[in-house]
């Protein structure tokens, strides 16, 4: 029904075509490169908005089969012998993510306008990164998903190592790439196992998501078969933690989070925006899509302890952020903290909590992109990110101050903004989960464990308020050093446009959450039913 125009392919591949075009340009064509990049990301962005608003939530709610859960599907056989299809489609979780990628990538190009060092190459790699990100969200074939996942990491490395902050870029780029690569390879192996197991059981070897989901939902799913040689361990239970945490590395799950603050700090502004804003969501998204959705039995067994890791993320990240002197590290660690809430939402395994996690992915994405753009704007003009030596910048750049404060309020969960809309369901989901889910170690079961998690996790929210207020005060208010920052002026009009683009969804979603919540809910409900149904 939606096949007339390949919307998702257009969204995903337009930046790739633009990247090629840019590489064909002469070396001196800096402005042209920027315009092409802006046009391409802008086009994808608009198409993403169009796609988002024509997504049919009612149809998704009434989905009768696995295939009907996805819309805008396109499928072309790719490597038919192996069951690999170029199969795209979105459901209620990925559609907002596509929209988010549009927001962050377009704003990212605008903010990178001032890059004078090889902007052609920069834009080309940046577009390639965007292609990878879009691709993961629209992929409906595990192979395609993995392909785009890796595609997103490559340009990341180059962008950080080439255009990053000189003191840290090589170390950070390497650290980031290694972490993510190791994680993804672990997850890849897990995916292959599932491919093979499903193929053996049904006789059809296919990476197609629909096929895999159908296998996962079979009453006696082969994923729940025992692993040969390991007594009482099923395939699902063996592989779930590897897949979930393998992808979770990219979502910054403790203790595999340390690539992220270093990576964020070393990256150029636009890359930090995509990186923290969208790339980390790839991890959380894939962990859900491949891990939880295909291996519900594994999720039931393992998420109750994984939620503890996410709790550490939330509290620990916030505490570290509180004491950073470097402006960008504060935001870097705040991402660690907030992404913990996403994984925590998945771990509640109920509709409310998971919907909250979906909303948090979007909210945090826009918020953190906004944060990094603010940091970048301050740094570009002040040439330092040392918080104590900044101050009074609201006078010189009121837009940035305003945007940062909005972002700060979002991050501390102020009602009326998107952060609250996302965090509140997550906490409610935790309470809801308490009686249902237990952490069992042998005969010893801890019943109300999720409630305790919720109580400890609010500590993270309190500390968040502390570090946000500290940064706001020390960077944007306080005394302005006229001598040292004599040359600091206001940001450009493009910067302001970028800030506005990122602020709008934060407010809109906060005031009117029905713009997104029902869509996400339509997609997580079947997952939650599978998790609680015991199928």
């Amino acid at each position, binding site marked *: 029904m939606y096949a007339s125009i390949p919307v998702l392919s257009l969204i995903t591949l337009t930046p790739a075509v633009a990247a090629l075009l840019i590489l064909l340009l002469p070396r001196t064509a800096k402005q042209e490169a920027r315009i092409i990049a802006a046009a391409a990301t802008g086009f994808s962005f608009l198409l993403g908005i169009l796609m988002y608003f024509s997504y049919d939530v009612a149809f998704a709610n009434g989905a009768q089969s696995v295939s009907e859960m996805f819309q805008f599907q396109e499928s072309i056989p790719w490597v038919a012998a*192996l069951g690999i299809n170029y199969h795209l489609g979105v459901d209620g979780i990925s559609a907002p993510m596509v929209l988010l990628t549009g927001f962050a990538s377009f704003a990212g190009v605008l903010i990178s306008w001032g890059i004078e060092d090889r902007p052609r190459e920069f834009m080309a790699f940046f577009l390639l990164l965007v292609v990878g990100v879009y691709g993961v969200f629209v992929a409906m074939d595990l192979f395609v998903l993995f392909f785009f996942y890796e595609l997103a990491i490559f340009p990341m490395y180059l962008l950080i190592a080439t255009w990053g902050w000189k003191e840290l870029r090589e170390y950070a780029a390497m650290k980031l790439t290694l972490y993510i690569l190791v994680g993804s390879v672990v997850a890849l192996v897990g995916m292959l196992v599932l491919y093979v197991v499903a193929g*053996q059981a049904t006789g059809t070897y296919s990476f197609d998501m629909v096929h895999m989901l159908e296998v996962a939902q079979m009453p006696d799913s082969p994923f729940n078969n025992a692993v040969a040689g390991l007594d009482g361990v099923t395939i699902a239970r063996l592989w779930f933690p590897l897949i979930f945490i393998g992808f979770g590395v990219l979502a910054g799950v403790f203790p595999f989070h340390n690539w992220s603050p270093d990576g964020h700090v070393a990256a150029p502004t636009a890359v930090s925006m995509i990186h923290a804003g969208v790339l980390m969501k790839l991890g959380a998204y894939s962990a859900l899509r491949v891990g939880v959705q295909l291996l519900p039995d594994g999720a039931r067994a393992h998420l109750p302890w994984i939620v503890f890791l996410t709790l550490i993320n939330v509290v620990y990240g916030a505490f570290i952020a509180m004491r950073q002197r470097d402006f960008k590290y504060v935001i870097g660690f705040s991402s660690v903290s907030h992404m913990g809430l996403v994984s925590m939402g998945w771990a509640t395994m109920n509709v409310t909590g998971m919907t909250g996690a979906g909303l948090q992915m979007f909210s945090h994405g826009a918020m953190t992109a906004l944060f990094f753009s603010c940091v970048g704007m301050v740094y570009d003009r002040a040439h330092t990110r040392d918080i104590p030596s900044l101050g009074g910048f609201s006078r010189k750049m009121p837009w940035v101050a305003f945007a940062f404060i909005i972002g700060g309020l979002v991050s501390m969960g102020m009602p009326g903004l998107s952060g609250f809309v996302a965090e509140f369901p997550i906490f409610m989901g935790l309470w809801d989960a308490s009686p249902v889910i237990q952490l069992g170690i042998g005969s010893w079961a801890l019943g109300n464990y999720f409630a305790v998690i919720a109580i400890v996790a609010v500590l993270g929210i309190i500390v968040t308020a502390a570090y946000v207020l500290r940064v706001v005060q020390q960077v944007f208010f306080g005394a302005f050093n006229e001598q040292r920052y004599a040359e600091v002026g206001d940001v450009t009009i493009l910067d302001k446009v970028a800030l506005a683009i990122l602020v709008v969804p934060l407010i809109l979603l906060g005031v009117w959450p029905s713009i997104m919540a029902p869509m996400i809910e339509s997609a997580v409900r079947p997952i939650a039913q599978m998790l609680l149904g015991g199928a």
Partner: protein
Amino acid sequence: MIDWTNANYLPWLIPVPPLLAAALIFLVTNRSWWLTTTTALVATITSWVMATIMLLRAIGVAFGEALDGEAFGSTAPWMDLGSTQFQIGVLVDPLTTAMLFMVPLAILMIMIYSVGYMAHDPRRERFFGYMSLFAGAMLLLVVADNLLLLFIGWEVMGFCSYSLIGFWFEKESAHRAGVKAFMTTRVADVIMLLGIAYLYAETGTLSFREIFFNEALLAGLAAKPAIIFGGLSAAGLIGVFLVIGTIGKSAQFPLHVWLPDAMEGPTPVSAMIHAAAMVSAGVYMIIRMYPLLEAGADPHHGVYSAPLLLMAYVGAFTALFSAVIAVAQNDIKRVLAYSTISQLGFMMAALGIGAYIAAAFHLITHGIFKALLFMSSGAVIHAMEHGEHHAHEHGHHVHNAFGGHGRFDPQDMRNMGGLKGRIPVTWFGFLTGGLALAGFPLFTAGFWSKDEIFAEAWHLGFGEGFGPAMFVFVLLALAAFLTAFYTMRQLAMTFAGEPRTEAAAQASLGGPKTVVSTFMQGPLIVLGVAALVAGYIGVPQDFPLFGWLFSGNGNPFHDFVGGTLPHHPPTLAFNVVPVLFSFVVALGGLYVGYRVYWRRPLAAGQPDPTQLALDRISPYLWQWMSHKFYVDELYQRVFVQPSQWLSEVLTSKIIDRIVIDGILHTIAHVAGWIGELFKRFNRVVIDGVGDGIPQAIGAFAGWFRRVQTGNVQQYLLMAVLAALVIFLSAAGLLVRISPTTVLIALAALVVIIVVLNLIGRVWGGIAE
């Protein structure tokens, strides 16, 4: 189209004008003082008019639509989570109606007053933006029909209080006070949020009326054991969480520390926070949620639930504790700040023992007279600053009367004295407000509301013999005595006798016809009258004479607000003992204060007579009181410093950088060491073997060395390409070869890739 004149929809509009005004002021009018004040005032007046229409409708005076145990209201969907749908809505029931009398009136008066008070501030436009937002949030909270919407207003106010308390952020102490207010209430707020989440998880709704009119639900919550903290019921735990939220917002011990510091904000902010909005919101929420807190208990028959006991003890203790502190404060606003904490303690304690309506009554009267007191104190401070300027112009250098070397402090009462004749309207405002606060019998609003609390506490404590009520009565009686005493001390130190400084001698508001004087003193007159007469809406029916005068058909406030809940609380028979107590503590406190401070006014530099008296017992008493029992210092040691240590040293330095990165780096080093070993092995052992194999190995080693160039890109590329190629070829063979074999092969390859990666990483490190 929605008919907005319908009483069910009109409440939606009440918070809108100030919110709109805030947006307008921030975005459009922020360069024009004239436009800004007009916008803010028009918005506030519009809200006040709509609120008054609702008020009149609700009591059926003008429109014949009286509430009869019913309520006006409507809902709309807000966030749809499929199985759970959040509704937001408005509700005007009798309790809301009572608030709609006090809150918009106080807000309007504060706004008018601010025009005068902020007339010369460089950032006055922004001030009105925040104030409008604050007012809108409070009105939103009042008309909310569910906890979620209430919480939204609650939090927005928290943010506004941060911005407004720290409004003069150039001053370090002001900024600190803003952060402190925000963080302290934030701690309580998130706990409250947990309570809301828990309540929702248990009941599936956050609507007040859906919960309170469903007795089976309440009984079920009271019978169900709580999810954690054994011994509590579910209702008990939710209640405790909510009460903690109020302890933060209404500044009860031990979270009271933010409120005195909040005096750093401009005085209209203090009036807003302490009277009309923020702190009242805390108590209002508790009154709203009362049936839940009371679930499974019956305080009128001596059965208490955990939240009730918590409120009774915390409230009574706070009332006395902060009254004691207030006695030893010299800052005119700090005295009022501690009196606010103390009066809120009265309300909390009253709620704890089941005196639901008395607490609501005191909330209303307190809102009025405390707004009045703060605005009067602002006028005093303004007059003092004016006097200081004046004195400067005439070549006098103004010193603190108590010999301090710091800047002249226009808020210190020791610098005042004799202001009675210099600012007579302010004197009238302060006097009526002060008498109402002290509970001066029969003619002030504060008497009637406080008396009702005493009557209930006496009846339940000594009539029925319930321990908590007894405790509450005794502590509140002591607190009321001290309240009257410190009020008289404040009145005397500020207004009586002769000026103690040149500034006080020159104090004035610039003559009767100035903008400052008009806008600042007009509201004082309005509220001054209200502080005297507002109490007559709640006179007990059988109170001698006054009951006959004002409550011929029963106590109007009691009967009306009692209609909020499904069951009317019982009306007490008149008892002369608590009334006598009220008389004695109020008049006694005032009299002692009069003897000590008014009859012999302080001279400049003279120590406080109370201090002298207490020093005779122990020199530490006064010191501890004036230092607020060192609670701030304690919190610094116990909470602030450890959490800084935790984040700075433990998590950031030790765990994150040393342990986690350390492990990573160690792995890399070990891998590097293995790589080095392989390299040597390669050279020494394998090179030594015959020709054929060495050649092959040599090729491998050459390749290996290339990997180890430290050129990370190249090396990374290879790793991933290898992974892909291997994966594809393996996948291609799948059809024929057993999957297990493929798996093992793949796993092995993966391990190799990982190791290669690590080696490369280390090689890079060593090469550096």
